[in-house]
């Protein structure tokens, strides 16, 4: 059972929900796909860390073989190559590693080398396997790291919780590709509804079964709740705005491991999600 946790924006509580669901599930895997700002490991503080460097291919130009035909420069759609002073220059941050330049160079002057863009760390925290992708600062895209991260999804049928990057762009699509179910986390504000609507459209587009967790619920109107009711989206649970929870969470403690009260909230949320996934599987089989 692969469960992706999404929100239109950071700060809504994706990491709170996914970390605590994994902690409540016991033996499970937590995968942090928010490679630009991975935070789950700060909560789990995993041990026995093994790391794997992630690299992408970038071109290496042999000036001695280059005859200045500029085929590569003209071909590159990402403006990663320029011909300056009878030399081909590479702007590696712009490169998408498509391999076109080396493929097309008539002089065979372009080969490819590995460029490190980040790493994946795998460790354990109690009985949760914690896998984190970390993109190097100054890099443009985390997609190559996410692609590698998803290979860490175990083949056993244990539960996997995928903490997604914020937004609804390409990087999020990559993260939900292998998900059986999507949990959307929403804040009770006007911003919250706007962002929820974006990820809601994304999961609908990809035909992923989904439900919403309302986070930071206060007394009074909840625009996100209203949105769910109007659009008949399943509300999986409500997490109250609560100072004690806020303090534990801001100190990077796993609330489900700290108190029975919070453990109960996430155990019950996990039960609801599991039932939904089973229901979806039954309907689709």
């Amino acid at each position, binding site marked *: 059972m692969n469960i992706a946790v999404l929100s239109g924006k950071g700060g*809504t509580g994706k990491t709170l929900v996914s970390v605590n669901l994994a902690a409540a599930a016991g033996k499970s895997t937590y995968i942090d796909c928010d490679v630009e700002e991975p935070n789950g490991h700060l909560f789990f503080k995993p041990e026995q860390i093994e790391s794997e460097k992630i690299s992408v291919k970038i071109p290496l130009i042999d000036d001695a073989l280059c005859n200045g035909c500029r085929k590569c420069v003209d071909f590159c759609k990402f403006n990663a190559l320029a011909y300056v002073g009878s030399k081909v220059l590479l702007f590696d941050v712009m490169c998408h590693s498509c391999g076109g330049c080396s493929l*097309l160079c008539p002089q065979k002057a372009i080969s490819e080398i590995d460029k490190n863009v980040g790493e994946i760390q795998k460790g354990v925290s109690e009985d949760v396997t914690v896998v984190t992708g970390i993109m190097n600062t100054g890099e443009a895209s985390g997609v190559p790291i996410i692609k590698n991260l998803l290979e860490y999804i175990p083949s056993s049928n244990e539960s996997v919780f995928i903490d997604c990057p914020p937004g609804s762009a390409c990087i999020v699509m990559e993260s939900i590709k292998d998900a059986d179910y999507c949990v959307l986390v929403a804040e009770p504000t006007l*911003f919250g509804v706007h962002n929820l609507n974006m990820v809601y459209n994304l999961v609908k587009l990809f035909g992923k079964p989904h439900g919403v967790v309302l986070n930071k619920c206060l007394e009074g109107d909840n625009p996100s709740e209203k949105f769910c009711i109007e659009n008949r989206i399943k509300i999986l649970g409500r997490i109250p705005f609560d100072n004690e929870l806020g303090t534990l969470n801001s100190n990077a403690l796993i609330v489900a491991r700290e108190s029975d009260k919070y453990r109960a909230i996430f155990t019950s949320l996990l039960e609801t999600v599991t039932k939904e996934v089973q229901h979806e599987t039954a309907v689709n089989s």
Partner: protein
Amino acid sequence: MKQLLILSGKGGTGKTTMASAFIKFAQAKVFADCDVDAPNLHLVMNQSVEPIRSDYYGLPKAEINPDLCVNCGLCMQHCRFDSIIEDDGYTIDYYACEGCGVCEAVCPAGAISLNPAIAGELMLYKNDSVFSTAELKMGSGTSGMLVSEVKKQMKEAAGDADFAIIDGSPGIGCPVIASISGVDMVLIVAEPSVSGISDMERIISTAAKFQTRAIVCINKYDTNIVNSEKIEAFCKSNNLPFAGKIPFDSEAVKAVNKGLSIADVDCASGRAAREVFERTFEIMFPITN
């Protein structure tokens, strides 16, 4: 025109809340929202005019003409993005395609072409102020390019304004790099949580890579005083100017839900934000005489 960019390393820390307050305090004539993945600034910057809308074309997408395709499979073999689907002939996965053009180049039958694809929409509000914003189409990549377009649209419409305030995008990746490019100063909004400190350090390191001046403020500082002190100490030891701290304020949530900024109502967070604003502008526009 000097440009101030508001960043946080992550969404939800209060970037838009701060940006909207700054725009009001400064009576800014020029501003933009570079969070093209999930723009929110327009929700609190009520505009009396309809925006001028224009389609944004991202990178083109490949298309295979089934009548010309000879099913050789070379395109699939060379595509690095797994965007060629083999299923009773070959087709392109629109969302996976990055428009690199390798498939078109290797196709021996001339069956593949790259066609323009709408990846989002740019909006420009022009009345007594200029507000440039955009929204990326769901699932599209290349948001960095759209961010550059938002800034370009802003600059072209700006006239002779002295400064612009830009609400940035979350994260440290391509849209953020595109927002940082060319700005004079970055205001980093940090949150006093262990996660928030980690995000702040990563965005500071990113800004430093692009040699952009940074100043820091803390939002919701009283939700964790110990961590707030750590952030202040971090700024001190790294020689980063500190602009101040804003308390958690449920009035701020109420203001936002009414479509107002915290500068529009009398509240604790609004008063604190004004101090942060004044300190930031003192550094951005030092008095030289």
